[in-house]
């Protein structure tokens, strides 16, 4: 008995544990691993995407591409394990999702909206392309929300320069369609240096698309309140990943998109 205690104590001492914060890119229950785009892990490892084997396979249940998680990375002599994997929601987690919200893998219904040039935009016309969709409004006064989301898309526009417009479309949908007319959106697009071939700003009757993608918005005391959902839709028109909140790192969304671009090749 004492010997066993000593042994487990020794192994505990040998193993080091690091807290990890990341976004799930893919889950492989058979291999008991998850691919995670993580933030820097203390001084141990910089931000990158890598697979982690989980200690408890049951903890993979309920994880999906885009979900933000935290776990303890236990690094032993021969191997490392993810322990105590848990979802970590932000302020947006307090907002109840709409009942129409799609699950990962479900098809997104077609929509008819207008872009910043007044052109009609339908989901079906993007079949075969990967879509990244976020929700913003041009008057948003909070630097940590819409401007950050748009800045992230501006970075993605540069990083996916080759694929943009051909293999990948960025769509920014307004939650303030009364005010955000195509002309207003065109001005906003210009501010962010958006290339209209690959980054389109959509307005019109956005309610159905928003509900499917879990976006909730409302008017309140002269303002618009909303959560921030960023979705990746696969080439087949099915929901592939959802990132909640505006606090993600742009490279995390980049990993999700890159993987989806790879998937359909």
């Amino acid at each position, binding site marked *: 008995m004492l010997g066993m205690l000593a042994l487990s104590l020794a192994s505990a001492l040998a193993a080091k544990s690091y807290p990890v914060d990341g976004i799930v890119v893919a889950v492989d229950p058979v291999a008991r691993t998850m691919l995670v785009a993580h933030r820097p892990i203390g001084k141990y490892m910089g931000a990158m995407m890598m697979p982690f084997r989980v200690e408890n396979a049951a903890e993979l249940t309920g994880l999906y591409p885009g979900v933000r998680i935290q776990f303890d990375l236990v690094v032993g002599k021969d191997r490392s394990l993810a322990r105590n994997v848990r979802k970590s929601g932000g302020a947006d987690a307090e907002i109840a999702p709409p009942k129409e919200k799609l699950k990962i893998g479900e098809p997104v219904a077609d929509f008819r909206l207008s872009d910043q040039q007044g052109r009609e935009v339908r989901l079906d016309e993007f079949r075969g392309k990967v879509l990244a969709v976020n929700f913003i409004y041009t008057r948003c*006064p*909070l630097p940590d929300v819409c401007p950050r989301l748009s800045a992230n898309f501006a970075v993605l526009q540069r990083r996916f320069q080759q694929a943009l417009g051909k293999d990948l479309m960025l769509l920014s949908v307004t939650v303030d369609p009364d*005010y955000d007319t195509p002309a207003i959106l065109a001005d906003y697009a210009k501010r962010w240096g958006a290339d209209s071939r690959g980054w389109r700003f959509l307005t019109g009757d956005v309610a159905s698309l928003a509900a499917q993608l879990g976006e909730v918005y409302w*008017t309140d*005391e*002269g*303002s618009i*309140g909303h959560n921030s959902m960023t979705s990746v839709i696969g080439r087949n028109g099915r929901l592939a990943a959802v990132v909640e909140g505006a606090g993600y790192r742009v490279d995390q969304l980049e990993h999700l998109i890159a993987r989806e671009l790879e998937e359909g090749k």
Partner: protein
Amino acid sequence: MKIGITLLAIASLAVAQAPKGGDNCTPPPSALAPTLPAKLLPGMGTVHLAITTGNPETQKFFDQGLAQMHSFWAREAERSFLQAAALDPEAPMPQWGVAMVAAGDWRPRFQIDLLSQVSGRQTPPATNRARTAAQRAVELSQVAGKATDLEKLYIAAVAARRDPNAKDADEAFVQGTRALLGKYPGEVEAQLDLALTIMRGFTLPDKKPRAPGTTEAVAILRSLLPKVPDHPGLHHYIIHGFEGASFAKEAWPSCEKYAQLVPNIPHALHMPGHIYSQTGRWADAAKAFSAAAENERGYMQQDKQYGDGHHGHNVHYLATAYSFEGRYDDAVEAAKELLAFKENPRQAGAPDLMTGAMAQGWFAMLRTLVQFEKWDAILDGQTLPEYAKPRQQAWRHWARAVAYANKGNAAGAQEESRLFEQAMTDFRVKTQRPEPPELQVAREELAGHLEVAAGHIDKGLKQLEGASKAERKLTYTEPPYYPRPVAEAMGHAALRNHKPAIAERSFRIALEQYPSDAHAENGLKAAMKLQTPSLASR
């Protein structure tokens, strides 16, 4: 609003925004610049400050903005000033107007000081609009012939307040306004600006003017009365400048006058109700809140972005006034109107909420049922509906426990008391904040009711007395965030248990807290009657 807090609120305008301290007595500034064009509206009050512009329409919208500013209607004032600016983009004074109002801090100094104390110095995002406008006003005023010397001094004062590097922005505005008055001592608008920004209110409970500023502000306002007797801002500022003073009643004429001069701004109709409530004129308070509610419903129907916070506060106070006046059915009806509002997703998702029309209606219903001792209605499970947030759960179980205790059902009271504690734990866990002090008092009050119900009358009354003392030390809020004065409950308990002297003392305390409280007045009469030997027994 007496020197206290109208209603501490978590008024985050968007989910990711840090919570902002605020209150609902004054409609908040618009987080977004108003986009719909302004219209010239009747009933805003008549104010005029001549500005340099070649366009008479610009002057009209400017004056309307100024009148709205004096009623703290930041959103509409900004809309009017923007319209004036659109009509004459080269005129600096419409920009001055935006700089004055867009940040939502055109309010009495004591309110600003208090909110800073409670929530820390906060700079709402809308301040950026005020800063940009101040800068623009300065630039435009430097163009030859575009601004008089007086206008430049007005602009310099607001520019000092909007300087992001200012050490004490409010004080910088005061200094700028004093500089203006040094050169133009008879300038009415500047005198009003100064009075508002130096009024620091009065101490509690001795009602002494707070230095520096309060005495000077009162003197300025008094001196202006004969000069501009129809200035809506003057009467509004007198109401605020005298509230909490030993001479608060001197503001009564201004209460009447202000609502007459500005019949189309909800806050102007609402505000006198605060003074009437403080002085026990509950019927007049109810009239004021009722008129404000009717007026505000019109705006809410027209503008879907209007919000329901101010209406919630106003109708909550209406129900409170009815409750203290002894009008049960009216109080219930007012509470029901608010209970029918739907929470928006932010409100619904928040672990704790006191603002929003629904939350305020819920508390108004709780107050009414408890104050009228409608134990059966409390226990029917519907009149006071379930509200799935720990704060309201705690209050609900508290009310049910008090109801059971007063009906002599000790087991029921104990069970509800247990559920109350469970909700309190839930509050700490879900909000990561300590227990609200008013609910701690509620716990103390409940213990008293339980003792009385168990037949330990003296012990129970002593506990109620302790709870009453604690309740009177709570932060003063309007309407009160304690359902009914504990002294009132103690008076009823003492009466029921044939202790008229204690009952009399208790009801007198309750009446000191809330003059003309009908429940305490009736109780006092009953207690006095019991103590007066009848002629026959002499």
